[in-house]
């Protein structure tokens, strides 16, 4: 069932320079992806900050329900 990660390990042998280049690229990819994810998290938090009710404590305290069902 392994869908990810299976292929990279099965590369044929190659010179060490190629490997180094690949590794650098790979780590850049990871770095880029992490930055993108961080940016994504920042942007969603910014969006949510804009819509959150203003006085959190009072708002939460005021949400009182009766049992149902």
């Amino acid at each position, binding site marked *: 069932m392994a869908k990810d990660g299976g292929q990279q390990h099965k590369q044929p042998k190659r010179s060490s320079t190629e490997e180094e280049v690949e590794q650098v690229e790979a780590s850049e990819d990871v770095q880029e992806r992490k930055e993108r994810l961080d940016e994504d998290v*920042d942007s969603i938090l910014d969006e949510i900050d804009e*819509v959150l009710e203003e006085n*959190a404590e009072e708002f939460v305290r005021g*949400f009182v*329900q009766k*049992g*149902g*069902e």
Partner: protein
Amino acid sequence: MSVRRIMGTETEFGISVPGQPGANPMLTSSQVVNGYAQTQPLARKTRWDFDEEHPLRDARGFDLSREVADSSQLTDEETGLANVILTNGARLYVDHAHPEYSAPETTNPRDAVVWDKAGELVIMEGARQARLIPGAPQLNLYKNNTDNKGASYGSHENYLMRRSTPFASIVRHLTPFFVSRQVVTGAGRVGIGQDGAAHGFQISQRADYFEVEVGLETTLKRPIINTRDEPHANPDRYRRLHVIIGDANLSEISTYLKVGTTSLVLAMIEDGWLTDDLSVDRPVTALHEVSHDPSCTHLLTLKDGRKITAVQLQTEYLEQARKYVEDKYGDDADRQTKDVLHRWEQVLDQLATDPMKLSDQLDWVAKYKLLQSYRDRDALEWDDSKLHLIDLQYADLRPDKGLYYKLVKSGRMQRIVSDEEIRMAVAHPPTDTRAYFRGRCMQQYAPQVAAASWDSVIFDLPGKESLQRIPTLDPLRGTKAHVGALLDQCDTASDLVRTITGGAAG
């Protein structure tokens, strides 16, 4: 059977007036229901027909006497509170202190999602209408299950089952499934314990409110398996399994898997397929412990001594379901059954490796990820009001305020149905159950419909002294194929009743 069967959801919505925690919830709930009623083609108030309601009938084979019943269990007595039967076949009414939307009967998980989501739009429109009245307060509606101060309100599922299935085997095989399915179906909650006094995040909104294994009650001493036995169908052939343990879901995939996997497990129980005893030691405690562990690594102890996680327990059901469907249908299994199995497997695989990857699919993970991001950015502890607010506002039904809707809008939640389908389902009934007949009658003959219920439509016709009751006891009759042409032809309710009673042999 497959994932297909007669099913439907019911949701009690949280309701509040900002700044007025003491606002009378029966009144505000009535305002929402009556607000929506104004949008319906109604010339008179259609009553709910309580003829076939038996809230005190127990699936174990006895009736609870009315004298010993708690007054909250007497749901068949007319309360005088607002009640509307909608053109989509749903029932919208005030249940205790909440507006409740009971979706029309559907035949498959996907349709159950569509008409469940339609309920969100119905409730929002009701609130919008209520606010148009001069001097009316702001009404906020929430699709959640607790105020985190001790009160819980339900979101129930209903499944039509064969009467011949022994109730004991339902209890035996469904209890471990319900203890564990929350890892898929949970809506997430900030706060531990019924009053939320302990700090932390848990998977389920509802788990902490369940106190016993089996029982008839829904408002006190809530049971994992509810025994209410009102089939709303021929009682010799069917029972309606009334499931009260679920969370109210906003994620379409959560609802889809909730009803889809449950329906599959019920099919296996009906066919006697499940033979292994997966009973969990102390299931009520286990239910709480699973909910309190968002890492999904807590080990449950089975009665046979094995220790496995809730995800592994779900996987046992999944594997049985795969074999069952393969054995029964091979490649001929219907698309939805295949799809439910496929998605169930993917979700369980992810839960076993990295639950957070499901933040675009499951409610509890989406909420948890959001909360964790806030904790990271602002260094917040679990008792912080802001985290409680995020929990609450995730379920806010206002499109510009609700955080679930925000996530959808920015493409952060996967969907399986379209806005167009949901909009259609607000006004129109499913075409393949008796809800079609009920909904069409409300569309065409509302002024003459005196009362209606799941299993009847009652007409008050001009020139007739007595009311004319059209029973709809079979959930699979009254479909578009069955009565569509008839309803097209009959301009008036009198025409319809004359054709039905005169044309039929009995």
